[in-house]
Each structure stands twice: as structure tokens, then as C-alpha cells.
């Protein structure tokens, strides 16, 4: 949670590059409180100590109000992807058949392509992309994950991703 002030995002992304940490994805948007934004960062790390350092360094920033490492919490996390896939009249219905079980939706149709929107956890999105690949993906846009802890905590949904 950060104060929505000029330069905040720059300070945070800067910190990651300064300390040589790699960001997999980052999302920013308004939170429930006015003037306060929520940033969700996904990083791949092998070492708990790195996460600890990151958390501490982020906490030191004046405009950072709260940092949570939610890797080991039960969380709700969602990502949105837009996928423009090649679609001919022959295979169009085949693609629709894939869309349905993933609860994705077709949001734009043209003569030779179909644009699909899917939301879900990153794993689900990756699986879906794999299934569409054989048809030929023309364009792909992913938002990155945004997340927070569930209302009721059940421990141990152990993941390698960490969200600050």
C-alpha cells in the first residue's frame, strides 16, 4: 500500500533494479482508501532471505505504508489476459469449445481472428495460452497478477511466487 504521490512507482521499481531483483510482474491501481494505491509485485526468488531484504527495503520508503509478503498465505489472485488468435471458419467452433471450460469469453471477432479475454490465476492463464498456441497467437497482452489475502486464512498454499 503506497501513498498515491508523484514518483512513488519510480521509487519502487528503482529499488528493485538497484538491488538487482527481477520483477515478473507489477500491477498498480487505486485501493479502497482515497489517495492510497495498492501495488502487487510478483518476483521469482529461491531464497527466503531475498524476500526479507526486499520487504525491508520497501518498508523503508517514506511513501510505502504497508508491505505484505503473501506468498505463504491463502490469497485471492487474478490476472487478465487478452489473446488474439488466428481463427478460420473451419476451426472457429473448436476454439469456442476451449473458451467455455476456461470461462473465457470472445470479445472481438474478425474475418480471420478471434480475441479472447480470460481472467484467473496465472497458472490457468498459462494453460489456456498453451492450448491456443497451435492455432497461432497474433497478439498477447497480460496484466500481471493482482492479489490480496483471503477473508479467512487457511495456511499452506505454498507457492514460489511472492507478492509484496
Amino acid at each position, binding site marked *: 500500500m*503506497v*501513498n498515491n504521490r*508523484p*514518483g512513488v512507482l*519510480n*521509487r519502487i521499481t*528503482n*529499488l528493485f533494479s*538497484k538491488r538487482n531483483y527481477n520483477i515478473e510482474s507489477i500491477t498498480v491501481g487505486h485501493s479502497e482508501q482515497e489517495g492510497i494505491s495498492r501495488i502487487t509485485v510478483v518476483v521469482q526468488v529461491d531464497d527466503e*532471505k531475498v524476500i*526479507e*531484504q526486499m520487504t*525491508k*527495503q520497501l*518498508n*523503508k*520508503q*517514506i*511513501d*510505502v*505504508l*504497508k508491505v505484505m509478503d503473501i506468498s505463504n498465505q491463502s490469497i485471492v489472485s487474478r490476472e487478465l489476459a487478452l489473446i488474439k488468435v488466428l481463427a478460420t471458419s473451419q476451426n472457429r467452433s473448436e476454439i469456442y469449445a476451449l473458451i467455455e471450460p476456461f470461462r473465457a469469453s470472445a470479445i472481438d471477432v474478425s474475418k480471420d481472428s478471434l480475441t479472447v479475454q480470460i481472467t484467473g490465476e496465472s497458472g490457468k492463464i498459462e494453460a489456456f495460452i498453451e492450448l491456443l498456441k497451435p492455432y497461432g497467437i497474433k497478439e498477447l497482452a497480460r496484466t500481471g497478477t493482482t492479489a490480496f489475502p483471503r477473508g479467512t486464512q487457511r495456511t499452506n498454499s505454498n507457492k514460489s511466487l511472492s507478492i509484496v
Partner: protein
Amino acid sequence: MTQKAVIAEKKGEKTTKSGANFLIDALKKQNVEVVFGYPGGAVLPIYDALYDSGVFHVLTRHEQGSIHAAEGYARITGKPGVVIATSGPGATNIVTGLADAMIDSIPLVVFTGQVATSVIGSDAFQEADVLGITTPITKHNYQVRKPGDLPRIVKEAFYIASSGRPGPVLIDIPKDVAILQAEAEEDPEMDLPGYQPTLQPNYLQIRKLIEAVSGAKKPVILAGAGVLHARASEELKKYAEQQGIPVVHTLLGIGGFPADHSLFVGMGGMHGVYAANMALYECDLLINVGARFDDRLTGNLAAFAPQATVAHIDIDPAEIGKNVPTKIPVVGDAKEALAQLIAQNGKLPEASEWVQKITEWKEKFPLFYEGDSSELKPQKVIELLHKKTNGDAIVVTDVGQHQMWAAQYYTFNKPHAWVTSGGLGTMGFCVPAAIGAQLAEPDATVAAVVGDAGFQMTNQELAVIAELNLPIKIIIVNNHSLGMVRQWQELFYQERYSHSLLQNQPSFVKLADAYGIKAYKVTTIEEAEERMSEALTTDGPILLDIHVAPGENVYPMIAPGKGHHEMEGVKK
């Protein structure tokens, strides 16, 4: 203060003035004694407000000089040094000083001009993205959008710079914001919900530390700059004495513990003393007070304090466990933590054998250098300076061999008398930093110990020394080389002296003379004695260009990648 101003002080009451005037009045409110700066287009409104404000401003001859002078002032007083620079090149000229202050935790409040709000982003004349450039090297930075925000922002900046782990804060002020009038409270509330430094250590952690001490046989304290930032040298002394624990210090921790004390071991690290490094290597309990386990201190981390339980007292939780695994973290102010430890008066460790062993190391393996009276050795220069000043001077150094010799041979019995660029190792630091130090303590003897190369990076500030008649004693340790580079090339690059030997030097005596500063060239021990005596009885500034034996190396030394037990050059 006028009647009107007094009334305006009342909470909630608002006054109307220009951004520049809000700024100047906010500086007065912070009791700023001196501002270092350099004018230019974007800060003209600020300089105009400064003109008859009564605020003491020092015009350095380069913005880098301003910021190092502010650092020198801050390093002595503990109060934020204040700098003003113009937009674009003025701002980029202070980047080195910001990085220096950031890594050494020096409180600064720096104002930069910026192009007018309406043209930001258009590559206007003298526009630079100062927030972007300085984000990684400031504790915090601001760009002011409304003149009325200035009182709050300045107040916050001083608070952030000087509280918690100190550091530089930059405030970027677009020209129109300085000019425009606005209505604002003079003493507004700060708005810093995300900033709450932990000062009070956790009681349970203090108990753990006390328990560890009581069971230790070979405890050692590592005293870092945090002791000095927290103004905790009295507490450190009391605690070490109460528990009978020997004290090693870092380069920036010099003066935190008196060198004439029986529990004083000396400086650890790359050019530290044998006893200190062996104490770090063999200890079973390492109590780090306000040091950040820099690589120049630890040497090879794999061989660092292999048998030790590590306890670490630090105001910055991010420093704890960053480089060295730490069993007992204590987050808090060093003064507070030490005061609690003293008050708890824990069971003493059985460390008499250990203290004895360290004393033997000190006696057996003291610092030494070869040489007789025929040659003027650089170490001798520092020894003479110590003798002539009774070890009582404020010593400001540049970066290189002379810095290490000053750290080794000028022993300090009191705190806040050592000013050096540690973490960044910034050549050019010394001359301007000495100006700041002398202004901080006008009556102190300030010795600026500087290399012949580093001197040439900021020697234009001699103008300021002359102008203000600051009685700084400039000691150039002239070895006709970039000595520290030359040493590494000798030791690790087969004596291939690539661009490290200075064949062509100006006459530093004539240079000083051109600025109206008394100066002498010195080549023998006798001359050095004589001229130093003269320097110390001279009221104004003086420069001694002391030609020392070239080719001298700094020893002892831990070579890169080696551990504390692998020191070289320990014994004759």
C-alpha cells in the same frame, strides 16, 4: 520577530507569500546556520529572497563543493547540511555528494531549481529529470507542485533527513512555484503516515543479547558510524567498561570509542590492525553496534567471524542480516539500546583470558613502517600532525592511501572529529568538507589531509577558504601519484602503472599563493616539524605541500577475497 509574524505562528493561521519566501522562512524556522550553494536561472527567485534574508550563504565555486561542504558540516554537528543548486547542470553536479551522503547516512536537505511547471517534460533549457536521477541516492525526494506546500515539505525534509537512519532529502522546486504567491500555514502538520523509525529496542531482544554476553568467552564489540550518529559514545564506553568487552571500530566508527582506552582494539577491515581483525576472526560473540558489515570491513564473508554468534544493533532493520547471518537482531537507536544494556547490568562474561590475548596481539603486532630519519614517510607526516595537534584536531580526509594512513596513525580520543568519505570513497571530498567542518566548529583546529590527486578535483574551493579566512590547515600528502591505484597495480597488476603516476603537477604552493593562502613546500622531517608548528600558530589558512617518499604502500592489508586471518604486512 514582528508582531505580525508572532501572530501568524499560531496554529492554523495562514500567511500569504511567495514560494521562495516560504522556503527561506522555513529554513529560519529550522535554525539553519549556513547554506551552501550556487545560483542559476531556475533558482533566481530563491536567491532573490535570500538576498536580504539574513541567512548565511556560502558561495562555493562548484556545486560539488557545496554538497561536500554541507556533508562536512553535517558530519560534525549531526544536523542536516543545506544546499541550493540550480536546475540541470547545477543539480547534476551534486549527484556525487548525494550518493556519498546516502551511503554514509549523512543528513542533508538539498534544494534544486527546476524549469517552470508548464515546460517540464519539454526538454527545456537546463531541464533534467532530477527526481528520476536522484531517486536511488536519496532517502526521499520531492517535487513541489504548489508554493503553499513548501512549509510542510521543508519541515518533513528536515525531519526525514535527521531522524531514524539519517540521509539526504532533495526538494526540487519549479521556478514558477518559487515565484507564485500562496496562502499557507507557517507550521503545518507533517503528513508522513508511512514513516515511523523504530527507536526503542525490543526488550526481549535486549534480554537475549544480555544472555549471550553472559555466556561468552570471547566477546567483541564492533562499533560503527551508528554510534556516532546516535551520539552514543558515552554509552558505548560505559557499556564496554561495565561488561569488560573489547571494542573494534570501523573506518566510519573512528572516535566512537577512545583510542587510549585499555579495551580499545583498533580499526578492523582491509587496512585495519592485526589485533582488530583477529579479534573479529576468533570471537565467539560479535556485537555489532551501528555498522553495516561493509565488504571493506568483513573481507571474504565466507571466512568472517566463523565461530561467532552475531548480534546486531541497528536503527535500520534492513541492515540486519543483509550481509552476515544474525542470531540476535536489535532494531533501535544505539543510544537507547546501550542505555538499556547498561541499566540491565547483565552477568559478566568470563573474558579475561580473551582480553589478555587481544592485548598481546596489540603489543606484538602494532602498526609499523620502515624508514629512518633520512626519508619523509607519509605515516610520519600523520604522526607529526598528531603530535603537533595533541591528537585534538578535527581531521578531514580525501580518499586514497593518505586516508588510510590518517585512519591508522591519527588516533582519536573523542568523537565527531573524523570526517571522511567511507562508503562511496569520493575523491575531491576533503577540501570542501573541511570548509563545512570548520564552519561547524569555528574554534577547532581543522586539518585537511588530502592526496595530491584528490586535491586537484576540488581545489577551486581554496577561494572560499581564503574569502572566509577559515583557519584550515591543508596537508597535501604528495606522493606524485594516484597512490592507492598505484599500490593495487604494484600488488595485483604486475607493476603495470597504467595512468597512476603524476609526472606533471602544478606548484601547489603557487596555486595557494594565487588564492592568497600562505603555503610551503616541505621535503624533510625537520621542515615538516617546523612548518606544522608554524601552521598551528597561524591564524588563517595555510597549505603544506608535503613531498613524501613515493612508492610507499598501506599495510597491513587483507587482499581482496581474503579473510581476516590472512593479513599481509603484519610484521617486519
